[in-house]
């Protein structure tokens, strides 16, 4: 409890008297179990019921430190970024990164040693972006991935096959669009945000090459992105739904025949639609193309400003390396994620059949994760261009030329720091 009831009353009394300085500084950490140093562990707010209680239960079971869990709504990245600048930030925090600037700025601790002997058990596609300079900066927790959900019955009625090429997807979306139902939902912004680099990977390209240069300086990029504009021009895209792409509501409510959303939506879709749906990766485009699904993992990181770095590392190792039972529970009992550890993913019965099995296969075969060198500045430049291409019909070649220029500068900046 951060603000105790007593402090509340004291403050109320003080406020009544017009004095405001009476409330004590009670940071009140350590209502978890165990003894030893007090650690604070931050999570972003998960939507699935029970997740919060679960992580609090894990923390309470740890005996070597008193761990307090903080459950943070709102813009989590912004909150952690601000908190890491100070001494009152978290000791341990989950992060959709860490970002290269956070690593280079010395804000997070090297966790390579924690994975001694088990490194190979972590899915390489999500472990790679946590690696920099040969060190590992966060322990992947669970894998999240996104894919295309489609309503079997609606496709059948319209005489449309599940699309396996981008052209087929564009055509299918057009055919499935009626006055009340749209063909495809890629988010309320028309897809620029959620698709990100996925169409580039589907065209056989990538965001950043292994050499650290721009990976989409290629005519194929403009060709593929240009096709996305057709979705918009045909009015096949659902726009302005009350819930965005991350929520399957639009799909379940029948506002759209196909929706791009996360694996986490699977249980809800299954519950509402039964068998009347299927899943697909983002379809390939062009002769060198291949299907693509974006994957990512929140990782557990330790703040370099923590007063108990060693204790924090030990706790992270306990929870996210040693306690495989908790890791399995966290991945599969509440939402629906793929465990980051290959051995757990293989064991999971829930992931062996139906759409879940497809999702696991897509992840292994077609998964791409955002490279560490792809910084927020690069992302903003690319996403702005993609939005203009999709919605305004801007010339993809010209837009991409600008982006390639900006991203090259940014890549040079971050790599200069490395050496």
């Amino acid at each position, binding site marked *: 409890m951060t603000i105790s009831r007593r402090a509340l009353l004291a403050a109320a009394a003080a406020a009544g008297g017009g004095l405001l300085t009476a409330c004590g500084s009670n940071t009140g950490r350590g209502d978890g179990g165990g003894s030893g140093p007090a650690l604070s562990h931050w999570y972003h707010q998960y939507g699935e019921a029970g997740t919060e209680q679960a992580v609090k239960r894990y923390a309470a079971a740890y005996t070597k430190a008193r761990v307090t869990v903080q459950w943070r709504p709102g813009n989590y990245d912004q909150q952690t970024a601000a908190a890491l*600048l100070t001494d009152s930030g978290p000791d341990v925090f989950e992060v959709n990164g860490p970002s290269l600037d956070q690593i280079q700025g010395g804000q997070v601790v090297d966790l390579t040693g924690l994975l001694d002997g088990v490194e190979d058990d972590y899915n390489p596609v999500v472990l790679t972006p946590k690696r920099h300079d040969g060190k590992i900066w966060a322990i992947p927790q669970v894998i999240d991935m996104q894919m295309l959900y489609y309503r079997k019955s609606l496709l059948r009625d319209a005489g449309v096959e599940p699309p396996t090429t981008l052209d087929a997807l564009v055509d299918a979306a057009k055919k499935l669009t009626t006055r009340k139902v749209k063909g495809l939902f890629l988010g309320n912004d028309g897809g*620029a*945000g959620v698709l990100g680099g996925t169409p580039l990977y589907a065209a056989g390209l990538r965001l950043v090459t292994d050499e650290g240069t721009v990976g989409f300086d290629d005519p194929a990029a403009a060709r593929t992105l240009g096709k996305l504009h057709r979705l918009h021009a045909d009015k096949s895209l659902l726009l302005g739904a009350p819930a965005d792409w991350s929520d399957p509501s639009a799909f379940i409510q029948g506002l759209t025949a196909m929706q791009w959303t996360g694996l986490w939506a699977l249980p809800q879709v299954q519950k509402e639609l039964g068998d009347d749906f299927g899943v697909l990766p983002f379809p390939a485009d062009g002769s060198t193309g291949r299907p693509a699904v974006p994957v990512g993992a929140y990782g557990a990181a330790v703040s370099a400003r923590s007063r108990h770095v060693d204790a924090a590392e030990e706790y992270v190792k306990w929870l996210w390396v040693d306690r495989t039972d908790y890791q399995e529970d966290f991945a599969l009992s509440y939402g629906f994620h793929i465990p980051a550890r290959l051995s757990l993913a293989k064991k999971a019965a829930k992931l062996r059949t139906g759409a879940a099995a497809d999702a696991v296969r897509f992840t292994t075969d077609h998964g791409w994760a955002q490279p560490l060198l792809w910084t927020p500045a690069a992302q903003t430049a690319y996403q702005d261009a993609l939005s203009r291409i999709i919605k305004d019909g801007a010339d993809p070649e010209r837009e991409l030329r600008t982006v390639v220029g900006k991203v090259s500068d940014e890549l040079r900046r971050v790599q200069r720091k490395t050496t």
Partner: protein
Amino acid sequence: MSARTVEARTTAAAAAARQSPGARAVHRRRALWFWVFVGPFAAGLALFTYVPLLWSVWLSFFDAHNTVTPTHFVGLDNYTAMLSDDAFRDSLLTFALFTAFIVPATYVLSLALALMVNRVRRLRAFFRSVFFLPAACSYVVAALIWKMSIFNGVRFGLANTVLDFFGAEPVAWLSTTDPPWYWLVVVTVRLWLQAGFYMILFLAGLQRIDPVLYEAAAVDGARPGWQVLRHITLPQLRATSVAVVLLLVVNAFQAFDEFYNLLSDARGYPPYARPPLVYLYYTALGQGQNLGLGSAGAVILALIIGVVTVGQARWFGLGRRNADG
């Protein structure tokens, strides 16, 4: 400012005090009392506004990625980077246009409301309350209603239900760039939230107009309506109008909340209708922790707001003395 004469008097008194014999003791006593009254406030403002402000200015000369205690001095690099960033320039231009539109629109609507409410005989308090009530709403709540209920892009949004009634296709209000329907959403939410507050300012101004003026105008044969409005009411409301326009302009350039709540999503913000503050927010506060660049942009923005405000004040013939002081 109606306060000008009084202000002048105070300063004159101060000047007189300076010259009179034994002025020193008087001075000291006054200074003491002044700081007794103003001191706590000024100290707090210095600590919680000026310190962060100067800190921001200082940051703007450094390469400050993910740090507030940078060591790498870069001179004016952040400023040149910001000024040559077309996304930032775009946002400044967009917001100049937005200001040019929203200021007159809010002005006209709130003045019209005030004139009507002022003249209505029955239910006056009722109407005043209704128009004023939205001012109590937070931007978060207003954005929620606008985005999810009135102007959502699907068939069950209120606006689309109305369109459907007339047989028109549903419109994705916030996502359509051609025509830019999102402006309709942004402008209406701002009008709804703000008009009532400025209406109250105008109502207060109207109350202060001497009825004799209207009687005289009637004797002179001015027809009620436009002529009276133009020759009596508006000139008498000049002071209020100036204050309202100043407040509106400052508010328009500082636009953040409703834009952020209406248009941002988990993945960022679309490249249109992006106010400078929202752009800076993403540069400096989101995952892009480029605090030096963000601070440089903030300084540029604050300078623009300052220049516009002071320029406007001069244009209206206000604060001439202020500018000297």
